[in-house]
């Protein structure tokens, strides 16, 4: 089954095609561009491009997998709305996966690992995975110093992700180079059981983790002195 994977939760805008079969998941094509300000421009042409790469048409897709974040809101929504609208037109199920799982799951190698992406405002989105890649904590958003403490409590020995690179000093952990951004093959693998089972698709709800910045209107400010 040909599956489209999209993730726009980090500066990396990703579109990929994966083949999900009974005995495995293989990456067929992937396009990834790192540009924090052009998610809206980049994603749709990349979806078009990966389809062209394998000579497929949209109607050949059997399912769509999307990274649910957490991530900066504006960019994150691009991936989710793209997945949701394509799923609607094609009549195929859409499945969400926590984008941090796309970092932490493939990075797991026996020891607990911290996955982190940049949340701006001097904070990171983070989660911790056990040696087998199962999420132990998170996703949450916090200052790197706070995350460092939580990671120590959870016996984390290594970190992964661009958020970990950016705040490596504060986190005080060795940082693995790859994956730096959510790995589309990992996202497809994590959704594969649902895809194979033909599970009903889900509404793609972003993991915002923060409320909108807004203050309730106060009374009128007088203009007379």
């Amino acid at each position: 089954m040909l599956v489209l994977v999209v993730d726009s939760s980090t500066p990396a805008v990703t579109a990929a095609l994966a083949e999900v079969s009974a005995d495995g998941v293989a990456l067929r094509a992937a396009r990834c561009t790192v540009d924090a300000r052009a998610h809206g421009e980049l994603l749709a042409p990349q979806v078009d491009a990966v389809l062209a790469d394998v000579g497929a048409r949209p109607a050949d897709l059997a399912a769509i997998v999307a990274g649910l974040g957490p991530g900066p809101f504006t960019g994150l929504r691009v991936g989710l709305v793209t997945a949701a609208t394509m799923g609607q037109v094609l009549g195929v199920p859409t499945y969400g996966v926590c984008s941090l799982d796309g970092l932490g799951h493939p990075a797991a190698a026996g020891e607990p690992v911290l996955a982190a992406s940049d949340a701006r405002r001097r904070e990171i989105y983070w989660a911790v995975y056990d040696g087998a890649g199962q999420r132990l904590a998170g996703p949450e958003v916090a200052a790197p110093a706070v995350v460092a403490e939580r990671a120590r409590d959870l016996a984390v020995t290594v970190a992964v992700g661009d958020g970990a690179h950016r705040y490596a000093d504060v986190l005080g952990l060795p940082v693995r180079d790859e994956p730096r951004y959510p790995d589309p093959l990992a996202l497809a693998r994590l959704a594969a059981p649902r895809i194979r089972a033909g599970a009903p698709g889900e509404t793609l709800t972003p993991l915002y983790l923060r409320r909108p910045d807004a203050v309730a209107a106060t009374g009128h400010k007088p203009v007379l002195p």
Partner: protein
Amino acid sequence: MADEPLVLGIETSCDETGVGIVRGHTLLADALASSVEEHARFGGVVPEVASRAHLEAIVPTMDRALREAGVTIADVDAIAVTSGPGLAGALLVGVAAAKGYAVAAEKPVYGVNHLAAHVAVDTLEHGPLPEPAIALLVSGGHSSLLRVDDLARDVVPLGATIDDAAGEAFDKVARLLGLPFPGGPYIDREARAGDPAAIAFPRGLTAAKDLAGHRYDFSFSGLKTAVARWVEARQRAGEPVPVADVAASFQEAVCDVLVGKAIDACRSSGIDTLVIGGGVAANSRLRAMAEQRAGKHGIRVRTPRPKLCTDNGAMVAALGSHLVAAGVAPSRLDLPADSALPLTVVSV
């Protein structure tokens, strides 16, 4: 006519998620989801709240529009979407949605100008627009006067507000008078029982010295302050505030300036068609005053019904249909959402 283009339009520039479907100049569906109630306690539209609401609403709103029109996306000839101007994050949801639909259904996509769409929607009600025409577009987000030489390609800005949008002034005065948000309909209702000549509120940028540099520009900030001063003076003196009279006098001042400048633009260029659009065009006094004053000069006023004046998907579909019929090339798939899209750019 079966060979008229079937076009789907998506609008998300502010707080309304709209999906409209038209064939030629015929409206087939106009589905809308609004987040206005979520913004009420903030006294204005909160961009992030609006963006979140668009993401939740787009798929169900599209479903409703398709059902209402009795078509599928496979049937449409093109997908049009507001690419600007508007709230950046809100626009981006609509643009990304339009691309998702376009890629999946293998259809062309047109990124269009929100203001030109406010003009185009009138074709659904009154047929093809005589060109050139003057358009007055007034809402909570914009207040512009423009000349439409060719609705598909050539729109010329004549003037715009230099501070608050007209609809914003309605919202602020409504709050001052203890009326709910959005203020336009409540001011309109209160004003019906009031005397429009009770208080002489200022008409911004209409003095001879202002006309030299701002003949077709608007300013509503001074008016808003004048209303606030008047109301506060009453309150401090312990006197009751005559809400109906304040509403009527304020509304009269706004309409007087809008209509005066629009008619001046028509007369000075010898153009006899005036289109009025945007949420404030739903104001009953504005409609009546424009009809009455334009009639004296042989100018025909075209104003779509109130539901089509406020932001909606039908207006975007109407402009898209016009572009397809005019042979305008579609946008590229990397078309951006542009919160400051210039008025002169009808389609991206």
